[in-house]
């Protein structure tokens, strides 16, 4: 005999679940309770529609659903990620973002090379007079076809600016290949949630882009453009990558609203 709608097998089950689900994060507990109640009532309704008495229908729904002792540990296991798994996910995502970052630097090296060809070494680097020591000058002049030490230093540093970036870009491609290989071996999504990586990437590339743009503009104003190219070659690439990640992030937020 049921006096109150909740004085029923399903009502008592939900009371037990409420108690046990306190170990879960509050929202997860609330959602689990709501979903379980809807499920059990649907299941009991379906049985009653087939002619089963309400009490038996509820007992049948509970038997098919499983015990609270079975359900809550499964849910709790889900919310508790092993440290090793988390470390693996961070490493995986760091590899991917590192590879994209390095390739972005490589692309900026190509742009810097173009600026070098158009504007000369002066446009992508500056050499402080403090480094123009006789020893350094002798080394630079022996390596570069230049008429004076300053020109030789500029050529050397410009060469380093372009080629070190291009080398980093190649390293980025290799890192990306390594990441793909690791991911295939791990069979599946082994990185952090895409919404997390996209947020980190969008922020990192936006900050890098704005920072280098600021340095470039500063060089244009303060140093009459000397060395501005080293920053202005990086800024548009970083901002373009940031824009790609922002677009992906906006799409994900629309697709998977943050709870």
């Amino acid at each position: 005999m049921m006096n109150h709608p909740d004085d029923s097998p399903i009502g008592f089950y939900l009371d037990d679940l409420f108690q046990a689900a306190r170990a879960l994060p509050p929202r997860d507990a609330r959602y689990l309770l709501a979903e379980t109640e809807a499920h059990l009532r649907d299941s009991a309704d379906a049985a009653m529609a087939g002619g089963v008495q309400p009490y038996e229908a509820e007992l049948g729904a509970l038997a098919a659903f499983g015990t609270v002792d079975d359900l809550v540990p499964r849910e709790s296991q889900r919310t508790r990620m092993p440290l090793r798994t988390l470390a693996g996910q961070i490493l995986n995502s760091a590899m991917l973002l590192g590879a994209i970052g390095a390739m972005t630097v490589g692309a900026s090296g190509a742009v810097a090379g173009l600026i070098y060809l158009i504007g000369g070494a002066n446009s992508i680097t500056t050499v402080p007079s403090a480094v123009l020591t006789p020893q350094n000058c002798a080394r630079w002049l022996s390596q570069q076809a230049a008429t004076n030490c300053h020109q030789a230093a500029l050529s050397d540093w410009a060469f380093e600016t372009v080629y070190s970036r291009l080398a980093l870009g190649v390293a980025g491609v290799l890192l990306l290949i390594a990441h793909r290989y690791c991911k295939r071996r791990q069979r599946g999504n082994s990185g952090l949630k895409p919404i997390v990586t996209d947020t980190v990437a969008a922020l990192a590339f936006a900050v890098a882009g704005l920072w280098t743009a600021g340095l470039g503009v500063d060089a244009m104003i303060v140093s009459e453009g000397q060395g501005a190219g080293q920053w202005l070659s990086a800024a548009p690439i970083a901002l373009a990558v940031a824009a790609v990640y922002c677009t992906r992030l906006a799409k994900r937020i629309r697709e998977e609203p943050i709870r």
Partner: protein
Amino acid sequence: MSADKVKGHLDLLLLAILSTDPGHGYAVITQLRERTDGLLDLTEGAVYPALHRLEDLGFLASEWHPVNGRRRRLYRLTSSGHSALARQRTEWQSLARAIGNVVSSSLAGTAEA
């Protein structure tokens, strides 16, 4: 078929069922039962932690909707979920083919003997 045998393939089954239409947990269980002619004996409650885990992985997205007077959480596949389904489906087909080859050859051997 026991729940243990289903366990390793539950993600694939859930993704496959939700790939056609969004659905809530009870509808997923009903679909699973109908499509397998009741062959898969699964504890119904086990579906929810699995759905929540797939959502954590970004394979599913969910929203609350009133359906037939009850508030239900509807799950649907995201683009990552569709990719995961395609990947897991390929893996499953390879596994089924490999096991099928072994079992068929042993059957043929038994018949010959």
